[in-house]
Structure formats: structure tokens, C-alpha cells
């Protein structure tokens, strides 16, 4: 996926100016950056929730501006940060909405529908809860239910906007391990926004670091997160060590 010269502004305040970048197929890419830097905006521009003022995004060599919303929804699934659903809707019905891109407004007939829904419920371990209503789910279960809906779309690409925000550490790990499994076992390309730098280092292959609407770094996570860059992007002092357990680097912020 190619991002070329992307521009976007809220009102007349220029926000994102001339973004260029490349998102690798089959990898987990995390978008990092301080609050209000344009992470979510970039994610929303790529899935065309927002329309850019300039530039374009190319998916498999085709401009997404030329695709219909339906075509995009068959290629990219997105899990939003905040979701709304009627409280009495069952998990199974919710996940069935994920088949909308493959159905028409008038009929819910589609051949792979049941299979896709079953698979999505299985992967997210929501099978046992499929008759439970959304209003009675815990925060983590709720997030998994919406991920299951996105998975039922059966796309190759999955976007997640801050999937771990509002969850405690147990559910955060559950979601991130699920994301990893989707990538490793099912070959999905994952693009997500995270706040936690350590989680980004653990769970992603590539990162995109954004500051004030510009990309500061794009590429492999190991080379990307350095003490200097953390100070440049977030304005914090930190040390980076490597875990003796799994040889993954981790970061500890210091008192400045």
C-alpha cells in the first residue's frame, strides 16, 4: 500500500502535509506519535473515512479514490476506537453485519457468509458468547466482538484504531495476541494505532512515527525506536534495553 503526497486539513488549519510512505503487505505496522499528531486521521484517510485534500493512496496499484466504498470494504476491514450498537443485539447478529460488503441491502444471501461468521467467532473466541447481547459484554469481550465483525468481512487487511485503549492489561494482551495470531496464522496485513511504545515494540514489524502531521520515521521497529527519536517525537528522556527473555527491546521513560 502506497501513500503519496497526502494532504489533509481540518477547516483551514493544515494538518497533514505531504505524507509519503509505504505499508508492507503481510506485516504488522503500528502508527505511533503523541496525542493530536494525526495518527487516527492518517488511519481514517487510508480507509477513506476522511477525504484528503490532496495526494492519494494506492492499494494494489489502484487509487482508493477511484474505488467505491463497497470495493474498499471488501479489501480493508476496520475496527474503530469507539463503537456503538443497540444493547440488545446479540454478538452473532453483530458479527453478521460484517458480511454486509458481500450482500445487498435487501437480502442477506451470501454463500460464504455462515462460514465466515463462524470463523470470525472462533478466531476471536467468542463462540460461546454468540447469543449474549452486546450490552452485557465486558470491555474486552466487546472489543473482540467488534474485531469479529471486522474479520467476518474476510479482507486481507485489518485496521485497528487504538484497540487497547480503555482496556486493562489482561485484555490489552488478549487483543494484541489475537492481532498477532491473525497476522502470523492467517497472513493478514495489520495496521494499527497504539499509544504504548513497549506494546508497539513487542507486537509490530514496522512502525510509522508521526509528529505534527509529518512522518518522522517509517520502517522496521528495531531501528525506528531509538532514545534520540523518542526525545524528538515525544519529548521524553528514556532508556532502551533488550529483554533477556525474548530479545525484544523495551523502553523505560526516565525522570527528566
Amino acid at each position, binding site marked *: 500500500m502506497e501513500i503519496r503526497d497526502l494532504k489533509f486539513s481540518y477547516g483551514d488549519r493544515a494538518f497533514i502535509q505531504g505524507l509519503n510512505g509505504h505499508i508492507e503487505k503481510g506485516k504488522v505496522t503500528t502508527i505511533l506519535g503523541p496525542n493530536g499528531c494525526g495518527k487516527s486521521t492518517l488511519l481514517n484517510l487510508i480507509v477513506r473515512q476522511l477525504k484528503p485534500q490532496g495526494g492519494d493512496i494506492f492499494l494494489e496499484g489502484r487509487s482508493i479514490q477511484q474505488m467505491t466504498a463497497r470495493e474498499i*470494504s471488501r479489501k480493508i476491514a476496520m475496527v*474503530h476506537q469507539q463503537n*456503538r*450498537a*443497540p444493547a*440488545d*443485539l446479540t454478538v452473532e447478529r*453483530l458479527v453478521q453485519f460484517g458480511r454486509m460488503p458481500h450482500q445487498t441491502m435487501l437480502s*442477506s444471501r451470501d454463500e460464504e457468509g455462515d462460514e465466515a461468521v463462524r470463523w470470525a467467532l472462533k478466531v476471536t473466541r467468542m463462540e460461546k458468547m*454468540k447469543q449474549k447481547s452486546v450490552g452485557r459484554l465486558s470491555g474486552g469481550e466487546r472489543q473482540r466482538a467488534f474485531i469479529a465483525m471486522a474479520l467476518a468481512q474476510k479482507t486481507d487487511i485489518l485496521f485497528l484504531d487504538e484497540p487497547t485503549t480503555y482496556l486493562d492489561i489482561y485484555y490489552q494482551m488478549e487483543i494484541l495476541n489475537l492481532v498477532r495470531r491473525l497476522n502470523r496464522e492467517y497472513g493478514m496485513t495489520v495496521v494499527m494505532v497504539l499509544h504504548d511504545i513497549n506494546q508497539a515494540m513487542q507486537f509490530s514489524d514496522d512502525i510509522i512515527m508521526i509528529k505534527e502531521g509529518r512522518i518522522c520515521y517509517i520502517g522496521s521497529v528495531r531501528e525506528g525506536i531509538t532514545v534520540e527519536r523518542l526525545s524528538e517525537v515525544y519529548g521524553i528522556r528514556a532508556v532502551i534495553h533488550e529483554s533477556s527473555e525474548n530479545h525484544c527491546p523495551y523502553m523505560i521513560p526516565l525522570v527528566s
Partner: protein
Amino acid sequence: MNANIHRRTELELTAGRTARRILYFAVLIFLLLACILISVNVGSVGVSLRDILAALGSDEGGIAGVIRDIRIPRVCMAVMVGANLAVSGVLLQCVMNNPMADPGVTGISSGASVVVLIITMYLPMHTSMIPVWGFAGGVLACILIYSLAWKHGLSAVRVILAGVAVNSVLGGVTSMISLLNSEELSGVLNWLNGELGKKSWTQVRIMAVYTCIGLFLSFLLPRCCDLLSLGDKNTKSLGYDPNVLRIVISAAAVLLAGISTAYVGVIGFIGLVVPHISRMLMGSEHKYLIPFAALMGAVILLAADTIARTIIAPYEIPVGVITTVCGGPFFLYLLRKDNKGYGD
């Protein structure tokens, strides 16, 4: 073992839900039939179902004539208008994602009534066109209110505020037209307050045609409505434009409310109360909610109309007065209640 127990409770849950829905539908159908029978009976010597059928088939005068030409058209009108207003309310509440929207609050009813009033006062013409004018008036009011309330999408609060403003302007226009035509006022006044009586079979037939179109359209919309209830972002990422869906659903709602207002005037709060009770009984899936609300709207308006014409007999209160008096407090109750079950 454990999985087995689990599967059983699951099945029971689904089965229970379905059984409950069927039961509620059955009760409503029974109530509707009972209401029809009572409504035809009230105010005269008792008539049995056989008498009613005989009256429909005959062309005698007397009691049979009264039943055939006055009561039955009135019952038909109440059933159709009740269903239309209730479904219109369901659709508008879905569009705005707020249980306080209805054809009255959003100004659609008053838009329709002003246009119909102007047409009947100044350009009297063939009655079959009246529902079309009602629809046109509803569309105008709806466009006006939506464009006043539009700011990065529709917010229910802004729509309701804009609706209040537009409603009072239209109310002023209505008063002005009524005053300018005071010699024809009494009939008009009753119509403005919502009146189901004095309808001919021709009007009933015309109304039936438009009602069928409107209800047929709204029975095609459940999936659109359900999708919208997941919020704009999810609607978009599932490949549909939420604002296009809103316009389509609103069009059906305006059609239903516009044609009803055109013939029977403003009948408030049916579109507010009925969807709310239906949602409590049926849940939020529009596949069940829309037909259920249609039935319940028919029952409630028919019951209200029967009360309206018997409570101070031989005089009649316009049914709109009854629904407004009972519905107003309900609106306040919704305002106080938090809407947790609805969206978030």
C-alpha cells in the same frame, strides 16, 4: 457435558426470544380485531361481525348505512394512519439515533398540514392529489429542518431545536390562513387538530394506495436501519454511506407521515410513543420492530379515536387532542430518562 448444557441454554434463549415475539404479535392482532369490533359497535345498538359483513355487502340505509358509510371508513382510516405514523416514527428515530424524534417534533406533520391547508383553501382540486401535497409539504419541512440542523452530520438535539422553530413558524402561518378564511374555519379547525371522521370510501381507497406504497418501502428498509444503529463509522467501513441511508429512510418516513397528515391533520405523539413501546417489547431489530410498530400504531390510534368520539358523546373531540394530551407527558418522561438502551 458442559458444552452441551451451554448449547441447550443458548437454544432456549433464542427459542424464548422468538416465542415471545410471536406471542406479542398474536396479542396485538387480537387487540386490533377487538378494537375494530368495539369501534364499529360503540354508539349504537349492538352489531355482530355478521351484521358488519352484511352491511358492507348491502346498499341499504339506516344502521347498515351508518356502519358502511361512516364507521367502517373511519376505522380503516384510523388503522392506516396509526400504522403510518408509528412506522414513520421508528424510521425517524433510527435516522437521528434518538428516541425523541417523530413526525411532529421534526416538523414534518406541520409542513404537510400547512401545504395541504393552503391548497384546500386557495386551490381546491381533486382529492386524489391531496396526499401528494401532504408529501410535498413534509419534504419541504424536512429539507428545511435538516439543512438548518446540519453540521458535520445530523444531531438529534439540533434537529429537535430546529423543529421547534420551524413548527412555531408554520403554526403562525396556519393561524394566519385560518383567520383569513374564518367563514370556513370550523371544519378546518377540526382537521388541524387531527380528525378521522367524515371520510368517504374514495378517500379511504386513495389512502390505502399510498399507505401500501409507504409501508412496502419501509418493509424494505430494516437492514439499512440496523446498519445505521452501529454508528456512522461502522456503516462506512461496511461499505455504505450513512448520509445516503439517512436520506432514503427519511424519504419513506416523510411519505408515510405526509400522506397521513394530508387527510387527517396533525395527530401528535403516535410516532413517538408507539415506537418506544415497540422497542421495549420487540428489541431493536427493525425486521420485527417495523411491522410490530405498524400494528401497534393501528391499535392505539383506533382506541384513541373510539375514546375521542364517545367520551363526551354526542360531541366529538378531535383524536389529535387526545393523543397530544396523553403523549405530551410521555415526551417529558423520555427527556428525563437516559437513553442507555438505545445507542451506546
